[in-house]
């Protein structure tokens, strides 16, 4: 996907936004390539088609949510309830299995639950004007709480055999269904954000909601749609993850909301809103997947992986800042 030049927002004409984004993505890509090379030197098992294919499962589901989350964060909002939505959607599907619902019905239930949760967040944020971070911290407990009430320490299993395709199936050779879906969604979200009026509205709202409103953008409606999309993507991820695990417990996808946000921020999306790109998020997904899988091959303890991801995040964010400072100092001298 190439860079677009239509991303300038009128009130930020002189902003170095595009230049910074460009350097961000190339920087990330460099990091990804470096990690790939380091991994292939560090472990003899890394360069193997099946192993790399297995590795993609580490990030595909999270990345699906990250695409919608990127748009939401660019618009200046956030949804921390996504992991809880997965739990609730998975619980709904598991309950449906007990009534003998087939695979198409299960997928429909999973997606609908996601949409409904997204709509609930959307109403609270856009209609009541509540801050999204507070609302979704609340719904995070609410959605997962419902799962815990329904399931307790029990488990739903017995998913139909063909339901396993979404999380365990392969479309072609080592290319899994999840990977194909990930790529497809990346293209769709890339086009929506970078090539449509809707996408430009998202940037405009993130940069200056009042200005966007007075420019005739229906701010509340755009945000409503973004929350719906995020809920829907959590529903999609719930279908994939439930299919991959073949069972549902209320603790499913615990803590994923922070990993999704990390992926988005690592991808160069400004956490305060207004800038970011889908290609960045795609590369960030690969970076996170490669780091965790590569370190996993070396049997590095998980806590060290978390530290590495944290350092990576700080490093990638701090580097451009430092670079700018250094350049300014050189220019002054």
């Amino acid at each position, binding site marked *: 996907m190439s860079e677009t030049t239509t991303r300038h927002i009128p009130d930020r004409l002189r902003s170095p936004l595009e230049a910074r984004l460009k350097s961000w993505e190339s920087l990330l890509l460099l990091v990804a390539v470096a990690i790939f090379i380091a991994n292939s030197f560090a472990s003899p098992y890394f360069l193997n088609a099946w192993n790399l294919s297995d590795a993609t499962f580490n990030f595909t589901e999270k990345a699906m949510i990250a695409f919608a989350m990127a748009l939401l964060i660019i618009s200046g909002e956030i949804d921390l309830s996504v992991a809880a939505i997965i739990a609730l959607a998975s619980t709904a599907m598991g309950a449906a299995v007990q009534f003998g619902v087939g695979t198409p019905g299960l997928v429909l239930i999973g997606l609908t639950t996601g949409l409904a949760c997204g709509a609930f967040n959307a109403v609270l944020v856009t209609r009541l004007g509540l801050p999204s971070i507070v609302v979704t911290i609340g719904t995070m407990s609410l959605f997962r709480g419902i799962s815990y009430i329904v399931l307790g320490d029990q488990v739903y299993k017995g998913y139909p055999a063909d339901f396993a395709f979404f999380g365990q199936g392969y479309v072609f050779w080592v290319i899994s269904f999840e990977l194909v879906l990930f790529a497809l969604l990346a293209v769709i979200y890339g086009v929506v954000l970078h090539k449509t009026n809707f996408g430009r509205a998202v940037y405009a709202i993130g940069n200056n909601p009042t200005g966007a409103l007075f420019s005739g953008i229906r701010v509340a409606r755009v945000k409503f749609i973004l929350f719906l999309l995020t809920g829907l993507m959590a529903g999609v991820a719930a279908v994939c993850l439930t299919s*991959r695990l073949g069972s549902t417990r209320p603790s499913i996808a615990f803590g994923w909301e922070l990993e999704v946000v990390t992926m988005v921020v690592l991808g160069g999306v400004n956490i305060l809103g207004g800038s970011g790109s889908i290609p960045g998020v795609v590369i960030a997904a690969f970076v996170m997947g490669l780091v965790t899988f590569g370190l996993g091959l070396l049997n590095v303890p*998980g806590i060290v992986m978390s530290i590495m991801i944290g350092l990576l995040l700080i490093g990638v964010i701090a580097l451009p800042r430092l670079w700018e400072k250094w350049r300014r100092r050189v220019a002054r001298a």
Partner: protein
Amino acid sequence: MIRRNFTKLLAGASLAVSLMGTSAMAQDNMRIALVVKALGIGFFEAAAKGAEEAAGELGNVEIIYTGPTDTTAEGQIEVINALIAQGVDAIAISANDPDALVPALKKAQQRGITVISWDSGVAEEGRSMHLNPSSNPLIGNMIIKLAADHLPDGGQVAVLSASATATNQNIWIEEMNKVLPDYPGIEVVGTVYGDDLADKSYREAQGLMQSYPDLDAIIAPTSVGIVAAAQAVQDAGKAGEINVTGLGLPSEMAGAIESGASKSFAIWNPIDLGYSATMIAHALASGAATAEPGASIPMGRMGEVTLDETTSGAMADPFVYDSSNIDEFKSIF
């Protein structure tokens, strides 16, 4: 720059391929992965110590001690995928979820990896055998034996359990009553329920002391109850008179052993557990034993385990902790 990266990549690829060749040829070391619920838990660190001990005895065995950062099934699946990629010979896992790990562990088995579970089991289709630390009859016998050992002339004992509906405790008490005739002179005067709450257990223990002035021992087959009962006995100034025993954790019971409120108590020994799991994994992976109902599998110094119809087996009697070994174990778990 690009060309340099490309050649680097090629070099990496060729190196990796050559490494893959050699490692496949010269693979005399058997690699056994000990996968735990989460790293940084004393119980599992102790199990890893046991696994290393077994590896030392067996020779030519490399232990990969690994696990996720927090106790999630998703985290363990990432670990399992990394282990599959490395082509380890065996995985011995203490599972965070008996069902969600099944697809990943099935995949491991399909790629020729021996999978066993220990401590916390996996559903039958995901593993070839499961090692329980102990069994209900062994625990039921142990808790009454602990009390009887210090009452050579017989005496009155009472039971402080968790809740009246706690499955585990009820089974153990039932098993205890079955073997009661083996301990002549021991009279079980009553059973009370502390609901696994510290304050309620404390009050129930006080109640026991008032109701039965000649009480000689309190058996608490719950780690919450045993600590509360020991405290109640100590506070009543009856340490040394009334012996509190049952199932407890060394770290929590060290004080009670010191004060004499408890002469001894029992719980599984994590070192033995890691040792036995490793021995079993080695026996199965090397083909020296097969996991089928009724089979006996050797576990080195721990004797052998006999598998029931669900191919699970019990390692041993719960391990007894008293003043002679409490200092060694209180820092472990």
